[in-house]
C-alpha cells in the first residue's frame, strides 16, 4: 500500500525539509520512499509545495502528486490562495492536517468525505523554537497520522536537520517540538479511494494574449499577486504619534506605502509583505506589529 503526501507551505517555513523528514522516517520504518519539492520562481513567503510517497512495495509513480492521501498545510492563509489550492485532488477518505487556530469545521465545509485535523503549530513553534519554522512540526503531525513509529521519526528529524546544517541546540529543540506535536495526535486508519490508473486527457482552455490574461505589453500589474498573504505580522500605524516624516515610506521595499492627499502615510495590506522595516525605521515608534491569523 502506498501513501502520497503533499505539503503546502510558504517559502522559509520548511515544506521541503518536512517532506524529507517524513520520507526518511518512513524509510527507517522499512518502507520505500520518494521526496521532492516544487519551486516556483518565488521566495521566502511565497507558496511552495513538497511531496513524499512511501510504500511497502516498489514505487513506480513519478512526478508531482495531484491526488494525495494526506495533505499537510503549514499556513491556513494558503487555503484561500488560488496559487496554492492545497486541498486540490485530496482523495475521498483522505486527510488534511492544517496548522491553524481556526476550528476544523470551518475549513473545508464541502468535503465531508475527508478528515480535517487542526493543530496550532505556529503557536507551538514560537513557544518552543522561538520562530515560526514548521518543518519538524508538520512532519510530526503527518507522520503520526500516517502511523510512522516514533523512534524512526525522531531519528529522521535529527538526521535531516543536521544535514541542513542546524546547530545541535536547534536540532534538540526541534526534536522536542516534534515530540510534542507527535504526542498531540493519534494515528488514523485511512481508507482512501483508488483512482483509475488510466489518466483522462484534460482539455486546456485557449488563452488569447491580452484577453483574460496579461500580455507582455502590460506593465506595473504585479499588485494582483497579493503578496500581503506572505505576512506573519502586520505593521499598524498609530496616527496620533506619526508626524508624517516619510521615513517609513522612503524605505518600504515594496511600494506598499503611499501618501494620501491628507499627507498621511498609508499601508497597502493587499501587498505589504510584513518585512517590518517600517517598524524598525520609524523614529517615533509610531508603528507596531500585530499578528496575522491569531498570532500574538
Amino acid at each position, binding site marked *: 500500500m502506498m501513501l502520497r503526501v503533499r505539503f503546502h507551505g510558504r517559502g522559509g517555513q520548511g515544506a521541503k525539509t518536512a517532506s524529507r523528514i517524513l520520507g526518511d522516517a518512513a524509510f527507517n520504518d522499512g518502507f520505500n520512499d520518494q521526496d521532492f519539492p516544487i519551486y516556483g520562481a518565488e521566495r521566502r513567503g511565497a507558496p511552495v509545495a513538497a511531496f513524499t510517497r512511501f510504500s511497502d512495495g516498489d514505487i513506480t509513480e513519478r512526478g508531482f502528486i495531484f491526488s494525495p492521501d494526506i495533505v499537510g498545510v503549514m499556513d491556513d492563509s494558503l487555503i484561500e490562495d488560488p496559487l496554492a489550492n492545497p486541498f486540490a485532488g485530496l482523495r475521498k477518505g483522505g486527510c488534511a492536517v492544517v496548522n491553524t487556530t481556526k476550528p476544523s469545521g470551518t475549513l473545508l465545509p464541502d468535503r465531508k468525505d475527508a478528515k480535517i485535523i487542526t493543530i496550532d503549530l505556529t503557536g507551538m513553534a514560537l513557544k518552543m523554537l522561538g520562530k515560526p519554522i514548521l518543518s519538524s512540526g508538520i512532519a510530526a503531525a503527518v507522520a503520526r497520522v500516517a502511523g510512522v513509529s516514533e523512534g524512526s521519526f525522531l531519528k529522521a528529524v535529527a538526521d535531516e536537520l543536521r544535514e541542513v546544517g542546524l546547530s545541535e541546540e536547534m536540532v534538540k529543540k526541534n526534536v522536542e517540538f516534534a515530540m510534542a506535536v507527535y504526542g498531540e495526535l493519534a494515528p488514523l486508519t485511512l481508507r482512501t479511494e483508488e483512482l483509475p490508473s488510466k489518466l483522462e486527457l484534460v482539455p486546456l482552455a485557449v488563452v488569447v494574449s491580452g484577453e483574460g490574461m496579461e500580455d507582455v505589453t502590460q506593465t506595473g500589474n504585479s499588485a494582483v499577486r497579493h503578496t500581503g498573504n506572505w505576512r506573519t505580522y502586520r505593521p499598524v500605524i498609530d496616527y496620533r504619534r506619526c508626524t508624517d516624516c516619510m521615513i517609513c515610506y522612503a*524605505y518600504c521595499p515594496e511600494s506598499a506605502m503611499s501618501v494620501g492627499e491628507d499627507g498621511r502615510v498609508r499601508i497597502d495590506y*493587499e501587498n505589504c509583505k510584513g518585512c517590518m522595516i517600517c517598524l524598525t525605521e520609524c523614529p517615533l515608534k509610531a508603528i507596531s506589529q500585530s499578528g496575522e491569523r491569531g498570532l500574538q
Partner: protein
Amino acid sequence: MATATRFRTLKDMPSDEYLTPGNTMCAGCGGILAVRIFHKVLGPNVTWVNAAGCMTIAVSYPLSPLKSNWIYTAFASAPAGAQGVRDALDVLMAKGKLPASEDMKVVVVTGDGAAYDIGFQSAAGAIDRRLDFYYLCYDNEAYGNTGFQMSSSTPFGSASKTTPPTAANPIGNTHRKMDLFEVWRAQNAPYVATLSNSHGVDFLKKVEKGGTIRGPKMYIDFAACPTGWGFDPKDSIELEKLAVQTGIWPLKESVDGVVRHTVVPRSLLPVKEYLTKQERFAHLFEPTERTEAIRTIQESVNSYWAVAGAKEGFAVKAAEVT
C-alpha cells in the same frame, strides 16, 4: 564642488512610484528597494536591461512590478543589450521616427554575480565604448538567486554555499572582496559611485548627478539580503547603516577619476557590531571566536580609511583592533 540638488532630506524623495506592489523578491530585499529609489530619480522613461540574478524573477511573465520597460539578456551580456537599446533609440531619433521627448534612459540592473564575475567583460566593453547608460549593481555579495554561492564580491570570512566553514578552513571565504569601484575607475568610467539604501539622500544625489554626465555611469548599491546573510528582514536598513558606520562599505564617488568620500564616519564602529548580526559570519564567533580573522577584517577597514583620509584630507578614528 557643490552642485545644485533637489534632494536635501528624505522628504524630497519623489513621490512618483514606478514600482507597483506585489513583486516576488524576498521580504526586506535591499536590491528591489534600490531599484525603487533609483527609478524615482530617473523618472518614467526608462528601459531596464537585466542580467540573470534575483531581479530577473521580480519581473516574471505575466506580471511585472515595473511601470517602465524591461529586457532580459543572457547572464554575461546586459551591457551589450543596453548598447543595442541605446543605438536603436539614437537611430530612430536621428531619422525623425522618434520624438526626442520619447527618448529613454537605459539602465543595466544586475546582481554582483553578473557585475563582478560573469558579465564583467561586457561591462568593460561598454565603458570602453563610452556607452551612455546607467549601470546599477545591487551587491548582496553572493549568488543569492541560486542559494548564496560565493562570487568575487563575497567578503573575507563570509560563509556561502560554496565556502562553508569546515574543520580544515574554519573561516569560510578566504578571498577578499574584489574592489569593483576601483576597477571601473581604472577603466576611466566618467562616473562611479557606491550607494547604500540606508543613506537615502546621498543615494538620491548621486543618481541625480549621474544625469548630468554623458557616458557610462556605474553604481554599486550595498543591498542587504536577509535570506542570504541570515538576519531578520526588519533589520535590512539597520545592517546597511552599520556597514557604513563600521567603514566596511565606504560611500564615495569618482568623477573623471577623482575620488571623493561622500559620507565620512568620524570614528569607526567596530566591525564586530556588523558581523555578529548575520548568520553568514556566525562561525567567526561560535563555537570559538576566530580572533585572527576578525582582526584581519578590522585592520583592512582601518587601513582603508587611513589611506583614504590621507589622500582627501580627513581624519577618521579607527576602531580598536582586538
